[in-house]
């Protein structure tokens, strides 16, 4: 190494030459330092790339193609899964829809039947009929006739004296001059409130030989006054006792 004048002679032992050069750096050391700087820089860069960047930065083209291929098939699989799930959702929505329709239908039937069974109040157009019989000669059968006439005329809800709701099982009896309906005494004068078409109801009461003529006739000698009302309110309820013997024979057939 002739260009390193200050360096020890080459034949000195390696260890002592190392120690000597630590104390007195030469041109070669500066060059080595520069090159090691470059190596350190590159190493740090590479380590950072390997650690932080995702795995795709250094991947080769074939690897990338393979990864892309895998992603493509994965996305196709997921798309078909999405289609399946959307179909399931459509099916379920349709099911929920028909279920909702059935629910509305049964709700409607429930309110109709509740009025029929007298378990809910009712209101609507109708008539109020007031029967006065000073001779107290109106009998239970007259009342049954009256109810029958009203039902024939399309009455949907009938109430006596704001207290007795007429349902399928309602009965009338007379105990001497006292009238009883469903175990309740009917005070005179009797007021009958009927919901239905007011015109038909009134005609049904007034036709010749009908209810009005019977009551106002010479046998009973009473009087009937009828008012048509745009709004009749029936608030009395019939309390339905649980059937002791009768049970539904089978589920109602589903209409098709």
């Amino acid at each position, binding site marked *: *190494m002739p260009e390193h004048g200050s360096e020890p002679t*080459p*034949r*000195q032992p*390696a*260890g002592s*030459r*190392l120690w000597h050069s*630590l104390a007195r*750096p030469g*041109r*070669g*050391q*500066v*060059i*080595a*330092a*520069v*090159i*090691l*700087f*470059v*190596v*350190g*820089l*590159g*190493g*740090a*860069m*590479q380590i*950072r*790339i390997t650690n932080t960047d995702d795995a795709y*930065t*250094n991947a*080769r*083209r074939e690897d990338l193609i393979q990864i892309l291929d895998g992603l493509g098939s994965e996305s196709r699989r997921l798309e078909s899964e999405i289609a399946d799930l959307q179909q399931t959702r459509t099916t379920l929505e349709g099911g929920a829809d028909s279920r909702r329709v059935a629910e509305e239908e049964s709700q409607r039937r429930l309110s109709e039947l509740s009025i029929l069974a007298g378990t809910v109040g009712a209101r609507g157009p109708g008539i109020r009929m007031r029967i006065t019989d000073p001779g107290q000669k109106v009998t239970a059968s007259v009342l049954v006739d009256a109810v029958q006439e009203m039902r024939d005329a399309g009455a949907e809800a009938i109430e006596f004296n704001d207290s007795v709701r007429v349902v399928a099982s309602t009965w009338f009896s007379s105990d001497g001059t006292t009238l009883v309906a469903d175990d309740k005494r009917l005070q005179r004068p009797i007021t009958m409130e009927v919901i239905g078409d007011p015109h038909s109801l009134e005609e049904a009461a007034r036709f010749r030989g009908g209810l009005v003529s019977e009551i106002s006739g010479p046998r009973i000698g009473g009087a009937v006054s009828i008012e048509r009302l745009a709004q009749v309110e029936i608030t009395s309820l019939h309390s339905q006792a649980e059937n002791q013997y009768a049970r539904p024979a089978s589920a109602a057939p589903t209409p098709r």
Partner: protein
Amino acid sequence: MLPLIGLLVGIVVGLLLEPTLPLALQPYLPIAIVAALDALFGAFRAYLEGVFSDRVFVISFISNVLIAALIVWVGDQIGVGSQLSTAVVVVLGIRIFTNAAAIRRQLFHA
């Protein structure tokens, strides 16, 4: 002492400034680093044997790095890039071990 300081400064600068290599060159950086390590071990061995020449060192360093990168680049072009980079790493690794053994003999006489 100066080379060690240079190495440390390089690592620190690389970590702090976070310089980025162009994307096209990034696949060749690991191979270049292995080649540079081989050149460094060779230089250290030559230094310990008393035949160190800074000119030879600079030329061998640059040519090592360039040839390694070139081999891998050619391999990438003809479709055997990963195999060729493995070959380069193996060959350079063998050389590094040989140099390390020589250094060990020089320093510890064993």
